[in-house]
């Protein structure tokens, strides 16, 4: 087991733990913070996969912008503690069961998938994750979606204004 693998396991374990913590912390602010940690772990994975651009973007966009927005809203709304009563054991139970079976289902599917056998993901290798090839691809092959995504933003903007204004 080499270093990279150890890092992989460590990051994964960390991410999973943090993700679980998102679920179980009572205080929404804590959840946000845990989620940021998950994002960091995922960014770590990106770096491990030599996808530096995405790693950076992930941190900037998700951990930076989006999660701050979440925090901001939580502060705004000022719900310090989750006001939900803890009783709904049944709901939690069924939720976990459903998620568990979801996971089991997919793992069993993936395990059966023959084409994946022997396929590996090279770590710390390759150049596609770097800014240069990505940029080239984005503005050559993917220029149409790139432009179109502006519509998305426009509509989101109009929408946010519509909804946000008093």
């Amino acid at each position, binding site marked *: 087991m080499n270093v990279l693998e150890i890092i992989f396991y460590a990051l994964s374990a960390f991410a999973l733990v943090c993700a679980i913590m998102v679920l179980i912390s009572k205080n929404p602010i804590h959840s946000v913070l845990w989620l940021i940690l998950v994002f960091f772990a995922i960014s770590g994975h990106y770096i491990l996969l030599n996808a530096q651009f995405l790693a950076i973007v992930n941190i900037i966009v998700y951990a930076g912008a989006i999660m701050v927005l*979440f925090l901001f809203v939580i502060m705004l709304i000022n719900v310090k503690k989750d006001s939900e009563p803890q009783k709904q054991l049944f709901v939690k139970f069924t939720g976990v069961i459903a998620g568990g079976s979801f996971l089991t289902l997919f793992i069993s599917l993936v395990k059966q998938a023959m084409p994946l056998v022997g396929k590996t993901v090279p770590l710390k290798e390759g150049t596609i994750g770097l800014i240069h090839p990505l940029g080239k691809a984005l503005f050559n092959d993917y220029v149409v979606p790139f432009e179109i995504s502006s519509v998305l933003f426009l509509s989101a903007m109009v929408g946010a204004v519509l909804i946000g204004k008093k």
Partner: protein
Amino acid sequence: MPIQYYIFFCLALFSIGVVGVLTRRNAIIVFMCIELMLNAVNLLLVAFSKMYNGLALQNGASATAGIDAQIFVFFIMVVAAAEVSIGLAIIVMMYRNTHSIDINFLNRLKN
């Protein structure tokens, strides 16, 4: 690193997100769990991208194989950002009216 490990890991993250959606009642946290799901997908896409890139390199083919998945991740982030802005706006609007963001209170419309 075998691809399955990445898949398992991402699926686990995804499922945690699903469980979160199913069990939490705070709208914001539910939304966060959805973001978690999206991130799991992102990571999986990158893993696949690298896998195909690696395969292509082994076969000596084009070195840019698999890049489209990373682009896709980029777009998912874009969309997620837009969604977050709308989503949070809706949540805030909701809060203004009801002073609650508990999704269990959202049951006036039913049957």
